[in-house]
């Protein structure tokens, strides 16, 4: 096996430029400075471009995320040559790849969604059409941006899933750009189907009278979700988006990579991610009910089921930030134990870190991000700054090889073999002791869950995050 037979990201190893925690500290400081500067320029309601309206800003950071995934994961940096990627200075490489992604994003949003789909397909993708039909310009833009953004939300689950869970099958042997185009088209098509099943009815309800002849209104999920809002779908779709990355990073594709059969492993991974995401989604919804009391259908903000579903997705994204940070900047610590133990520790650690990030965000974001104070303001979307930050992580690690704290060196043959071990693991085999351990672990897991749901009402009664 040589470096050219695997993707660029798999072919390189990121090596610290300095010992100890210095690289992580330096990168963290630079990333946060860049985050704050770009937030002020592009997003901050008090800043220069003020795209956080919120949906315009949300649409942009979501589609940027997708474009980064397409460039690095789906197209493996095509049309840029491997030699260019290996030799170019990370700053130049990062700048060019980011600008290319931004250009592609603008073409996609403006060209495809607004001009083509909005003019010849579905009017709500084009704000000018909505405005011409009598909707206030602000809401015309926001509604169109919401629709375009939701496409990206679905794609940001399906696109990486096809690479991580399905291992690019059945097109894994195709060269670029054939493989990239095929997977992008297929996942885009699948996103469209999921969009129509989950969000089209939501968009249709925005317009009076309900577009009953073109969308299912009231929608099929009404009774189950206790709302006609599509936020119910945002909940599980956002959890899918997060779980696919947990699966790839802190879980190292465990435990589904124990399955040796290719088709079975890929199917189990793809649907396993959905299953885990739905479990997480239900728990995060229930957790809110335990802390804040049961929802009241039709009310607003904190007590409304539609907001609680949305907040499920918001809470999930808080988990993604420390998970990616741990993987990218802390070498996926810990790594010294067996894979299951590492995975278990990372899961518990990142979940705890997510809670800390959540508390810090709600206590302080209104002061330095220009967002509204409170959990549930309609213009308060923590997903936007979180994804903005994640985008910067990705630019730094994918496009800039972790510069300045890290540099890329080619992996040795032995290290490349470890890549295969990620896909099909052989370090856990079935024994009677493993079975006993599993049974004990399952009981502890159930008890942990029971303990958490018993603690949450007490937390709700005794802790105040925002005064």
């Amino acid at each position, binding site marked *: 096996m040589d470096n050219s037979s695997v993707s660029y990201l798999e072919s390189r190893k990121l090596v610290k430029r300095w010992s100890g925690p210095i690289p992580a500290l330096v990168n963290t400081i630079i990333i946060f400075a860049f985050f704050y500067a770009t937030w002020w320029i592009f997003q901050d309601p008090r800043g220069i471009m003020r795209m956080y309206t919120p949906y315009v800003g949300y649409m942009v950071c979501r589609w940027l995320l997708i474009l980064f995934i397409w460039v690095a994961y789906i197209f493996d940096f095509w049309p840029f040559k491997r030699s260019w990627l290996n030799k170019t200075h990370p700053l130049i490489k990062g700048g060019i790849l980011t600008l290319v992604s931004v250009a592609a994003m603008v073409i996609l949003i403006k060209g495809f969604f607004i001009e083509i789909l909005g003019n010849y397909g579905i009017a709500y993708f084009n704000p000018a059409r909505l405005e011409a039909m009598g909707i206030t310009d602000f809401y015309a833009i926001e509604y169109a941006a919401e629709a375009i953004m939701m496409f990206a939300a679905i794609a940001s689950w399906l696109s990486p899933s096809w690479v991580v869970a399905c291992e690019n099958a059945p097109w894994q042997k195709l060269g670029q750009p054939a493989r990239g185009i095929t997977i992008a088209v297929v996942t885009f098509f699948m996103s469209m189907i999921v969009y129509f099943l989950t969000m089209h009815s939501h968009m249709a309800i925005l317009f009076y009278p309900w577009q009953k002849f073109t969308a299912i209104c009231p929608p099929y999920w009404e009774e189950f979700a206790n709302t006609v809002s599509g936020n119910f779908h945002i909940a599980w779709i956002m959890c899918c988006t997060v779980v696919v990355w947990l699966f790839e990073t802190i879980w190292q594709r465990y435990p589904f990579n124990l399955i040796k059969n290719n088709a079975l492993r890929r199917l189990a991974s793809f649907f396993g991610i959905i299953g885990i995401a739905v479990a997480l989604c239900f728990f995060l919804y229930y957790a809110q009910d335990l802390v804040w009391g049961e929802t009241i259908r039709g009310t607003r903000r904190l007590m409304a089921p539609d907001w609680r579903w949305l907040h499920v997705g918001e809470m999930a994204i808080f988990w993604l930030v420390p998970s990616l940070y741990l993987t990218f900047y802390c070498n996926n610590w810990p790594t010294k134990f067996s894979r299951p133990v590492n995975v278990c520790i990372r899961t518990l650690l990142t979940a705890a870190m997510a809670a800390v990030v959540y508390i810090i965000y709600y206590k302080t974001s209104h002061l330095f991000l220009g967002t509204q104070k409170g959990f549930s303001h309609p213009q308060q979307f923590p997903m936007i700054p979180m994804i903005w930050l994640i985008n910067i992580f990705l630019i730094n690690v994918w496009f800039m090889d972790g510069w300045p704290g890290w540099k890329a060196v080619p992996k040795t043959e032995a290290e490349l073999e470890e890549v295969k071990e990620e896909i099909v693991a052989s370090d856990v*085999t079935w024994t009677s002791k493993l079975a006993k351990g599993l049974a004990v672990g399952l009981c502890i897991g159930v008890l942990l869950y029971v303990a958490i749901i018993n603690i949450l009402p007490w937390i709700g009664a005794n802790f105040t995050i925002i005064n």
Partner: protein
Amino acid sequence: MSNDNKNISRRDFVKGAATGLVVGAFASMGMYSYTSSAYSRLPKVERKMEDFGACRSIRVTNISETSWFNNAHLIGDIHAAGGLLVNQYTLNWAPFANGKGSAKGSYEEGIGSIKELLPHDLKKAWELQKKLALHPDNPGGYSCLIEVEALDGTIHKYLLDTGWSYEWMEDSFKREGIDKMLEEQQIEALFISHEHWDHFWGLPVTVKYDNRIPLYVHDGFYKEGLQYIKDSGYKGDLTIVDKPITQIIPGMALLKFDVPIINRVFGETSLAFNIQGKGLVLISGCCHQGILKFADFAQANLKYDNDRFYGIYGGLHISPFEDWDPKYDDLVISLGQWNFERIGCNHCTGHLTAKKFIEAGYPVVRGSARFRSASKDYLGNGDKISFGC
């Protein structure tokens, strides 16, 4: 060898246990969290049934519900300034305009241009501000007069909110005789529902006629809002409401809700009444907390006759810019379950919402669409509604 086997066995056990822990936790989440048994564990909310007395009847006069005259101008200005999170005092609207344009206003510069004129020469102050402000003819305001008949027949008068445009509110106060009532100190208090421009910025109009009227504001008011109270020439007894329930007179309570609101405003206060023999009446300025949360809070905390929701009046804040969201339909669908007998709504309720209420068969009291109110679907300027009379 045997030690090696023990080690391997122990490692296998730990690997299994670590895997099982994560799997067990996620499996429990998925299999239990959204089940009926999980919800049967939740404690039933105990109703506190706080007795706040009763009154005989109330009558509400809509002084003005038209907070602005053109949605496109209002939301366009907000949009141009950077969206719904931009600080209201920087929007460059009268009376805090400085002529520097969108989002470049400031409380200090705005008030500096008119402070000396407040509250005695509001006409000149407003004229000055109109030259500096964006869309100077757009402001209107929200304000209503609430007349409460006590059980002994005494009539208590209160103002809820004081509108926005000095010009429009002066005219509206004169039209309904509020100026005289204030001058004669017939009105016992002014409640500001929240700090927004259309409910609060017309404060000098009230102060002009009665600068000592007891004033109640939410404790979420920003320093600019508190300073404006002083700069308006107010000399009376200011109450910063910091308790969830404040009884005003028997049968009348002020309820406080800590809720984030657009353009950096925080917190809303609304009114609840217990009409003897009838039930609960809820009156709001904008109801940013949501009418159902309002009703739910009242049900959980207050004691009222017949244990029945009787009436609503005010802005219900559903589609103030004639925008829509599926969650608003949740409200339209579920409001019926609360069985209100009379619904008097206007202002930020939105015409579309009123239309949907009527289509749903709810007992909406319709209006006369006078004095620049735009629709008969809800109670317009100068219209009255009574509860218990």
